[in-house]
């Protein structure tokens, strides 16, 4: 077995990055990361206070793992294969077979078991995407989209990462592109992606998802000083900041990445109104950054003298109001 002629490109987010890199390998150079992210309707927000992740309320800016790749390839009518496995041995054999057939393979993995990543990021996070594009002397060649360069990993480490336990469990999940159509309906896919994302953000009738969850977090954050010890409140804030800004969102909890998608779409569809939407979302993204900056100051201050929890709640409320208006108008666009 050897190394495929694969071009690694660094991206902001693991799943849109893997999707773009796999499609570009098939000759679809026009699929950039922002396009993959937007067509895959990757923008989301959820805050689920009763679902504790290492003791802090679950907060996420991304949609369900695997959904971007699935939506992009379905929307562009690309023939793919996805598989889960019962044992690591079967999963590794299947990977070797795909590589032997000359295809790079995407996989879900746990960050904790990827020794090539800096320790600073290696928590038990089980929804990281990466690509294997070769095996030389028993060692796999890895394209991890969050890294500038390619990496390598031992088979036993990769097997551990693919069969990590916890929530979610990757169960060896592997995916690759089988065939691409001669002609892509990029315009249609962009429109469907925007529609889908507006639906995901605006319509969940539950308080924990989409816009509702931003308002929920805005309410909850005001009560932190009364309901939590100072230490807990700091950890809760820290977790929100990490979900929003730590590796993998491209800044402002994916808002800049989505704005980049709208900007690229405005050129592909030749629609200036999308350019305006992109600018608006950039401004909203800057507000998210301002929120994270203020939350970090509150977190470090250890006294409520700089930015109060009420002010943080106000910031989120303002963001929620703007995003609700933004996606309501985006949803009403006539194509």
């Amino acid at each position, binding site marked *: 077995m050897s190394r495929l002629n694969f071009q690694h490109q660094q991206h902001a987010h693991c799943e849109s990055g893997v999707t773009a890199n796999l499609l570009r390998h098939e000759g679809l150079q026009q699929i950039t990361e922002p396009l993959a992210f937007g067509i895959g309707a990757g923008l989301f927000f959820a805050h689920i206070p009763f679902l504790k992740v290492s003791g802090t309320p679950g907060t996420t800016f991304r949609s369900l793992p695997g959904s971007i790749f699935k939506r992009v390839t379905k929307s562009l009518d690309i023939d793919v294969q996805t598989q889960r496995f019962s044992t690591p041995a079967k999963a590794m054999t299947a990977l070797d077979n795909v590589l032997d057939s000359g295809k790079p393979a995407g996989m879900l993995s746990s960050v904790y078991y990827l020794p090539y990543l800096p320790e600073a990021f290696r*928590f038990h996070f089980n929804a990281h995407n990466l690509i294997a594009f070769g095996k030389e002397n028993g060692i796999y060649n890895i394209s991890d989209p969050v890294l*500038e360069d390619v990496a390598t990993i031992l088979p036993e480490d990769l097997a551990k990462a693919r069969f990590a336990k916890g929530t979610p469990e990757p169960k060896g999940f592997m995916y690759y592109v089988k065939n691409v159509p001669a002609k892509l309906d990029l315009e249609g896919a962009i429109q469907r992606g925007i529609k889908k994302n507006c639906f995901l953000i605006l319509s969940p009738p539950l308080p924990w998802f989409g816009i509702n969850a931003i308002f929920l977090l805005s309410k909850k954050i005001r009560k932190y000083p009364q309901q939590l010890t100072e230490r807990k409140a700091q*950890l809760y804030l820290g977790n929100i900041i990490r979900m929003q800004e730590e590796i993998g969102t491209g*800044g402002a909890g994916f808002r*800049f990445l989505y704005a980049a998608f709208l900007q690229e779409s405005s050129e592909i569809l030749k629609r200036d109104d999308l350019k305006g939407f992109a600018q608006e979302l950039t401004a909203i993204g800057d507000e998210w950054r301002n929120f994270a900056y203020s939350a970090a100051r509150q977190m470090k201050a250890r006294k409520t003298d700089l930015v109060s929890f009420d002010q943080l709640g106000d910031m989120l409320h303002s963001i929620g109001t703007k995003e609700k208006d933004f996606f309501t108008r985006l949803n009403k666009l006539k194509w």
Partner: protein
Amino acid sequence: MNVNEVPQDARDFRDGDKVRKLVYAVDKDGKYTGVNSAGWEAENEATRQAWDAVDEALADTEAKVKAGQLSPIAYYMQKCLMDKALLAKYVGKWGWQVSRHMKPSVFNKLDRSLLEKYASVFNITVDELISFGK
């Protein structure tokens, strides 16, 4: 965020400076472009705080193991950033069984095969596991 506003605050702990992540920012012509960032103070502080919390809890547990209040399983579980539920899944036991194994009196009577199971999950040897804190 404009290109010239992309923060470059080094993440100088736990090899964090080895990654210059990609973020999206607006250039002088108003166009989005990918820019490498060494890190951002706000985000670095949050990451550092999460690790500090791990270190504090670990030091606390280490003292308890040395005082004979907890078994080494409690220490290595935290060292591997796991909680009881996750560790239970890895060793194929129930959470309450793992809790029992954290009592020194129960730990001292564990089968060799179960100790090997724990040691392999923690990526250490059985000797390292049983001799910790002694």
